[in-house]
């Protein structure tokens, strides 16, 4: 496989209520292993995926907050968050478990337009 493509994973769903966030993360790690140009976008309820302080003991579901923190080890550092989605949920970048780049919807839309492959789950 010679060429590198721009893969963006668009996360618009909250964690735990459905499995999409967890299984999306599993694909992200594989894409990184394939040495593709990987970025993640969080918007709408997807921003809750990286809200700090998940404690999942009570629901007996494996928590995966730490995995977002480990993305850096896989050279996945392009994490984009929609400012409007954060504000609509009373959150700021300080509430998030990883460093991200907060941007407007218009800026996020431009990023999306530059991608070769957009995967959503």
């Amino acid at each position, binding site marked *: 496989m010679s060429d590198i493509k721009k893969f963006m994973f*668009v996360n*618009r*769903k909250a964690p735990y209520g459905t499995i999409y966030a967890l299984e999306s993360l599993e694909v992200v790690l594989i894409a990184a292993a394939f040495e593709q140009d990987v970025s993640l976008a969080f*918007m*709408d309820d997807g921003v809750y995926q990286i809200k700090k302080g998940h404690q999942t003991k009570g629901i007996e579901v494996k928590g995966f907050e730490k995995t977002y923190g480990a993305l850096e080890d896989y050279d996945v550092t392009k994490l984009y968050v*929609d400012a*409007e989605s954060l504000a609509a949920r009373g959150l700021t970048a300080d509430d998030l478990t990883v460093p991200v780049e907060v941007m407007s*919807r*218009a800026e*996020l*839309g*431009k990023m*999306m*337009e530059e*991608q*070769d*492959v*957009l995967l*959503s*789950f």
Partner: protein
Amino acid sequence: MLNIVNKSPLERNALQSCIETGTGGAILLIEDGVYAVARGNSFEPTLKAAMGKFKVYALAPDLEARGIADRVMDGVTAVDYGGFVDLVAEYKSSQSWL
């Protein structure tokens, strides 16, 4: 980009987010997304306003299945599955707003 939306705008915000985020190109409404193009629905003004930025298509078999093929608002082009394929081919990338 081709934006594919499969949710009714009266139940979920997928179409709203798509319209606010997308830089242009086309929106194809499929499955329950086709309710967005039914004349007189409360999302109509928002979709009409977005037509300056996006070309809007709706999947005919999904319109027909839901009994709304005869009330598609002006400015929307109905396509069959072959037309869906052509749209995917026409745009460099596609995004499904699930």
